[in-house]
């Protein structure tokens, strides 16, 4: 696997094993550890996939107008291209983002179109990349940083926690830092270790950061535009296993950061989720519907700011809630959501808020990751435990 053109143009739930192996190839390219990843057994259906059913088509959108099927990677690329075109202060920087177009090809063609200085191949130094972005933003530019993988953003954590998150506050609003930090995150791609972390809890626990995680192609475009336009720093978590999912998509209105959306209405129980777990929840809801249970599914889209209003309305409508995410459960985002929902909706609840999350272990190796990831079965089993017998 050496470039994106060998990635099959479609991915469907039935082809999930192939899609997983393909994404793993991209991961392995960076990790230099192809063995095993590309040849691993199929993960169970449901661990991979995309929202909105099984239709398929070409990925081939190019321009930023006209509705056609578009991959998530392409939508992100279009968002960056449009932002670079519209605002000369926008600068993309990161490892391999220039000539190569990024290991996931999200920055494909940008250096050629806008110049190497607008889409800068940086030295391999994440703290430096983010630290340089801080200085650029202090001078009034709008940097968009790519962290190559979730776990490789950790070297930049001091810059993030001590400066990016705090600069506006410590200067009494005089120095905002409009930096977007793009992080491909999460597992399900058959990646070797350090390529599948879900690091959102670190970020949401750091006041001063916005934390956004889209799950659909349209949101990838819209929310990335919103993140770049924001005068606050935004950690933009891209669910890498959905990178090659595709949708009918027209770049259009930019949704506000901080609004969740109910993807599916239902009256039995409410699944609250985000990012890579959205397709799994939708599949679980499909499966439940086949048995006569109507599950609502809320896609948070933004973890900070958190949309209490939409979440609580959706929970009150059913009286039962399950939070689903890939990251380890202990001290995770699901714990915060369960607490918030309980504080606000206690008298509407017929059962405790339950969670389906990754186990409290380091992310497992490729052959075992399907045991760790929230699955349709685990979600449905958890829904079944919501004290229906009363």
């Amino acid at each position, binding site marked *: 696997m050496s470039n994106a053109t060998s990635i099959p143009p479609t991915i469907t739930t039935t082809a999930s094993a192939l899609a997983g192996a393909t994404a793993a190839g991209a991961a392995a390219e960076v990790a230099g550890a192809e063995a095993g990843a590309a040849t691993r057994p199929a993960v169970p259906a449901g661990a991979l996939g995309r929202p909105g059913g099984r239709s398929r088509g070409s990925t081939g959108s190019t321009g930023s107008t006209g509705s056609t099927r578009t991959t998530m990677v392409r939508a992100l690329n279009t968002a960056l291209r449009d932002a670079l075109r519209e605002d000369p202060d926008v600068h993309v920087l990161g490892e391999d983002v220039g*000539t190569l177009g990024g290991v996931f090809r999200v920055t494909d063609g940008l250096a050629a179109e806008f110049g190497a200085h607008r889409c800068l191949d940086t030295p391999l130094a994440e703290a430096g990349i983010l630290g*340089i972005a801080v200085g650029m933003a202090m001078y009034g530019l709008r940097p968009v940083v790519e962290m190559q993988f979730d776990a490789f953003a950790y070297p930049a954590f001091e810059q993030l926690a*001590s400066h990016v998150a*705090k600069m506006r*506050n*410590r*200067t009494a609003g005089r120095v905002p830092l409009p930096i977007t930090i793009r992080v491909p995150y999460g597992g399900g791609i058959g990646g070797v270790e350090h390529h599948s972390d879900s690091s959102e809890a670190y970020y949401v626990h750091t006041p001063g950061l916005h934390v956004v995680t889209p799950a659909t192609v349209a949101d990838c475009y819209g929310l990335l535009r919103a993140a770049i336009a924001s005068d*606050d720093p935004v950690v933009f978590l891209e669910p890498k296993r959905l990178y090659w999912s595709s949708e009918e998509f027209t770049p259009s209105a930019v949704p506000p950061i901080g609004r969740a959306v109910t993807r599916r209405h239902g009256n039995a129980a409410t699944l609250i989720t985000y990012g890579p777990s959205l397709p799994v929840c939708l599949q679980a809801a499909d499966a439940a519907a086949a048995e006569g249970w109507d599950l609502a599914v809320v896609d948070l889209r933004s973890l*900070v700011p958190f949309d209490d209003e939409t979440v609580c309305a959706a929970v009150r409508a059913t009286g039962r809630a399950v939070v689903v995410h890939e990251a380890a459960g202990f001290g995770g985002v699901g714990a915060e959501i369960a607490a918030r929902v309980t504080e606000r909706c206690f008298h509407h609840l017929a059962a405790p808020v339950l969670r389906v999350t990754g186990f409290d272990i380091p992310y497992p190796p490729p052959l075992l990751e399907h045991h760790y990831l929230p699955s349709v079965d685990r979600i449905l089993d958890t829904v079944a435990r919501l004290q229906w017998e009363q």
Partner: protein
Amino acid sequence: MTILDASAAPGQTGPPSSHGPRRDPAPLLPDPEPVRVLGTDAAGEVDPGLLRELYRRLVLGRRFNQQATTLARQGSLAVYPASTGQEACQIAAAMVLRETDWLFPSYRDTLAVTARGVPPMDVLALMRGHTHCGYDPRLARTAPLSTPLATQACHAVGLAHAARLRAAADPAADREVVALALVGDGGTSEGDFHEALTFAGVLRAPVVFLVQNNGYAISVPLSRQTAAPTLAHKAVGYGVTGRLVDGNDAPAVHAVLSEAVEHARAGHGPVLVEAITYRLDAHTSADDATRYRAQGEVDAWRAHDPVTRLERHLRETGQLDDTGVATVTRAAEEFAARMRAQVAQAAQVPAPDPRTLFAHVYAEPTSQLREQAAELAARLEADLDGDLDVRPDSGPNARPDVHPDARGDLAAAEPAAGPGTRSDLS
């Protein structure tokens, strides 16, 4: 393609095994001995006006350090990390910059920020407990004091890079902006220092790093910090020019730093200057230096005090007499008296309104922050937490709203810093 693209583009020109151009390290290497001016023939060639100005500012700077240390002992400052003994570095760092340049200080560099023209009360706001940064970094073109060591070095590179991008794209932007980052000897062991130099070298950013090697990182001596030949040699591995200077020789520091800044400004690439100096006081007002260094060592360095060395030179060459010394000393005492008065005035002013705690976390507070702000506001209105909002009339929380008299006496006679931070220097 612009020059900016070219500087970032791969330069594979050699045979297959060479991986790009190799550079001769010789021009990057520091001199074996630190550059000195005082006590050498070069001293006679220094502009007498510059020497007098350096002397005046060094004396005021020393007094600033003493006064702030006293204020910390009295409890008016939460803590004070003095740069006593390092005044030549602090003053020169501010003097070599243009108004459009940027300074990136570390936590010890309050004197350099004051010398750049920021009012002392605003510089000390961090230590007065009132706010994290008491000045407007964009007006003063001075970053907030950075406590996470060496992180500011990366910011300096990024800002210098951005200024060059802006200048290329926007005819109205400031031209030839240079960023000067101040780092300690201990800070050079941090990863961010290494990454800053890596980026500076690759981007050929107009940035200068001044490492004040005062021999210690809190208690840890340089010998435990690095095995490098000198800290200036660290530059070479990154393709950055290294310079070594006697940090207690004010005209030498001024000359080497000026040269470095102009080198960077002219597009010749970044420079790392190591200034060898000594921290005569303890690490901070809360530190006991006798636990890790001998009094004899301190006394030996006192003989190389940057203030007395410059004074001796000026007296020996007939450029300063008792009257001159008395004039500068009086100015320093007046400066210290104003600092005391401003702190006393600050003691009359209530602490900032706690409701402001939520104001600048984001451009717009989130609904969660609005809820928390409302909860605190309700407690304040019900006075549930005592007289939170009318406290205190002393201690580090106190601050005056206005202090028209508080302009930086240490700033240059001619405006050298951003608007609003002008000097009223007599």
